[in-house]
């Protein structure tokens, strides 16, 4: 594979990382919940897509009609519980780590620990691709990139333009004052967490399109997704998108120049450097909090 091809494919796959990361970044930034269970929801979404497509021959893209509402409810319920129990920040990390473990083990009990992959018959996207000269773009990566553009764009517009978005941003900056102005943070938080869950369903579908599934996959996402969240700036939507592309490109390059197993090494080193020198994210103007 040529270097140019690797860079472009990496950038497109980076779209999937951005979709995985955007929900996590938003709930961390705006609700101060570091929700590791988000990875569990991506996993669930992926397995549900696999199951629906395999059992009933549903087009993988259409499985979103089931998984998106389901994950929305799941995310919102989780947020409701966090809110009622007063779980934030470090504690949320621990609690959601417990939930993630439960989800992973449950998935493993249901679908076994073996690799599962949608067959070519039910997944027409796996083999499709677009060729431009010598460059080849597999359909799943194009879909991932498209989904990232749509999701990130929509989230950005909602946060900037709608009342709910402004209310959320106000809430992020000063909870007490925002509440005093009559912002019902509980409902907004649940809506945001629900939307974040819905994005997890999309991310799961995108992952299932081109990869084999195994219950322990979330641990492989950890590194990349947190790299995207932190490099992009916590809670920054556009930053997350750019960071996703950047990280995808970087790991594509490392994979082709050295070895795929070195990719985590380079990524984590990048996170550490970013944390040390720009803890507020690469693209953020504000000072670190």
């Amino acid at each position, binding site marked *: 594979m040529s270097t140019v091809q690797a860079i472009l494919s990496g950038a497109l796959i980076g779209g999937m990382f951005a979709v995985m990361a955007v929900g996590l970044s938003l709930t961390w930034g705006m609700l101060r919940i570091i929700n590791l269970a988000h990875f569990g929801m991506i996993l669930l979404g992926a397995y549900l897509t696999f199951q629906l497509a395999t059992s009933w021959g549903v087009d993988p893209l259409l499985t979103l009609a089931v998984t998106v509402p389901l994950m929305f409810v799941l995310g919102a319920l989780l947020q409701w519980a966090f809110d009622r129990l007063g779980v934030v920040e470090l504690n949320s990390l621990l609690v959601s780590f*417990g939930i993630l473990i439960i989800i992973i083990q449950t998935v493993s*009990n249901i679908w076994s620990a073996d690799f599962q992959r949608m067959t070519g018959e039910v997944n027409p996207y796996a083999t499709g691709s677009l060729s431009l000269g010598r460059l080849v773009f597999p359909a799943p990566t194009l879909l991932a990139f498209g989904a990232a553009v749509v999701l990130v764009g929509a989230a950005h517009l909602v946060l900037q333009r709608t009342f709910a978005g402004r209310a959320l941003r106000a809430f992020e900056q000063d909870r007490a004052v925002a509440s005093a102005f009559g912002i019902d943070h509980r409902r907004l938080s649940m809506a945001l967490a629900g939307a974040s869950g819905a994005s997890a369903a999309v991310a799961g579908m995108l992952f299932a399109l081109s990869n084999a599934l195994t219950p322990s996959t979330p641990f492989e996402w950890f590194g990349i997704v947190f790299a995207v969240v932190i490099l992009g700036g916590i809670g920054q939507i556009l930053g997350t998108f750019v960071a996703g592309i950047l990280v995808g490109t970087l790991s594509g390059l490392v994979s082709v120049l050295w070895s795929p*197993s070195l990719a*985590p*090494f380079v990524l*984590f080193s990048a996170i550490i450097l970013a944390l040390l020198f720009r*803890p507020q994210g690469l693209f953020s103007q504000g000072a*670190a909090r």
Partner: protein
Amino acid sequence: MIRRGLAGFVVLFAVLAALPFVRDQIGLPVFYLTLASTVLFWIAQATSWNILSGYSGYFSFGQGAFVGLGAYTTAVLTGRHGIDFFWTLPIAAVLGVVLALAVGALAFRLRSFRGEIFALLTLAVPFILASLARVNEGIDGGQGVVVAIPEFPEQVGLFPDFLFLLNLTIATAAVAAAFAIQNSRFGWALASIRDAEDVAEGLGVATFRYKMMAIAVSGLIGSVSGSVFALQIGFVTVEGVFGLAIPLFVIVMSVLGGRSHWLGPVIGAVVIVTMQDRLADAGYEGWRLIILGAILAVLVVVAPEGLLVRLQMRPWISLGTLAGVVGVLAVLRVWGEPLDWFVAGMVAVAVVALWPVRRRSAVPTGTARPRGAPVEIPAESLAVERPRPVLGDAVVEVDDVARLFGGVRALDGVALRIRSGELVGLVGPNGSGKTTLVNLLSGAIAPTRGGIRVAGQDIRGLQPHRVAHIGVTRTYQIPRPFVSMTVLDNVAIAIMFGLQPRSLADARRDASRHLDVVGLGHRADAKPGEINLHERQLLEMARAVAAGPKVLLLDEALAGLNPAEIDQAVRVVRRIHDAGITIVIVEHLLRVVNQLATRVIVLDRGTVLADGEPHTVMRDPEVVRAYLGKHAHA
């Protein structure tokens, strides 16, 4: 106390170490020793984690890095280079410490998002090591490494006996270390870091050094125990040692047992390992992690303080439950074997101990009068002119100091001399730079330009604890006590970590004297959560004075108090001043400043607007305008 405790560990070790030699005589199946080895391994690991993360509050997800480093050191050196097993232990120890210090040196520099970022950084470390091991053929190369059984003395008996002794040695040493740390200055330093790190630093605790020591000890124990783990599993794989199972287990164990006490992880490890063993034995393999995850999620919400604290609250009911459940099962003999009964008993105890208690409200309302009358502070009339204190040499010298935050000039061209014995009122509108000046003087931030000297020493770039040792301490506008310690120990910390290190017992004696000065002697044994705002502000002052400063910075120490409380606080400030401490007080209440201060400095938009006698300064038209707006007519 420490010596007696350590002697106890030696005795316990001797008794347990005898088990392999007498197991035939007492009819103990080898299986129990194997299980005990596993328990001991996890005790060592959970203790290693707890010394860093439990004691200092910095949560690590990176325990696997130490285990993996130790395991691979032993596996590779014995298997591929033929080095004797016993030699690999010290090598693993050194590597563990080096890795720990490297991680610490990187991670403890961060100031923002400290806790969460530390957690994520430590999450990254095992991944990095794993990918290095996977790529490097000389270490693993993706195949895993077989660990040969080393030679061991014949008298020991079987291999499981040998493993048991190794694990027992390491676990005992680890727990003894945790015990000694908890009961020494080291442990108190870590506890103060957990409760309020900046405050601890400002009182003279060398926080960076103690955090580095904690992570080094943690790495040492973790990697040596990891070396033995390699023998135990016999086949080392990247997934097995660098995966998230290890951090998950140690975190659950410590959270379950309790993180602030050395015994907590021990209890947690015993409960979790035996329970997991029984679950696997009963064929519920698929439920083990689900139960583990559920324990973690529920405990953090329901009982973040852990089992140990709860057991101490209900010791007899717990013991009774254990005896009852085990006894009934033993008599009935309808189910399981002794180990099952014991585990059932422990689970029952855990449930009983963790059952929600109707707690007495931990934070009494501000109006509730504390038990025992407060020490009355003699009410010298506030209006009376006091004899002028004798002023000495300049103790604070600020030369042309500027401090920028991004493009914002918080302070610019500020020059001040404060002579010893002065009581300076620092006033100014919001945003005029008062707090920035306090932060500069206490060393919390460094000036962008200009010089700051305290008692003749340049304090630019010094860490706050060094500045505290030179002689500047401060209070916080919103009191930030060490919540896990009593009022007395809050003050004792400041004395223990002064320029002259002191022992706890020694420090406590002096601490109670300082509490009397501020009129808090009757609340010495209360926890900060049980005293009201006024008392907490007095505690702030007592703590800052106990550190033995030349200059005391009071940052809005009277905010939010009622008039009677203000009068009492003013008397306390006078007492402190009369004891010979130079004071800079930031205050909005001009009445108080007028009564107290021998000199007033007015800041406005980052510069000194006026400086002099309280009465003259307050009549200065410029000052009046700055305070009341341009159109006010004084």
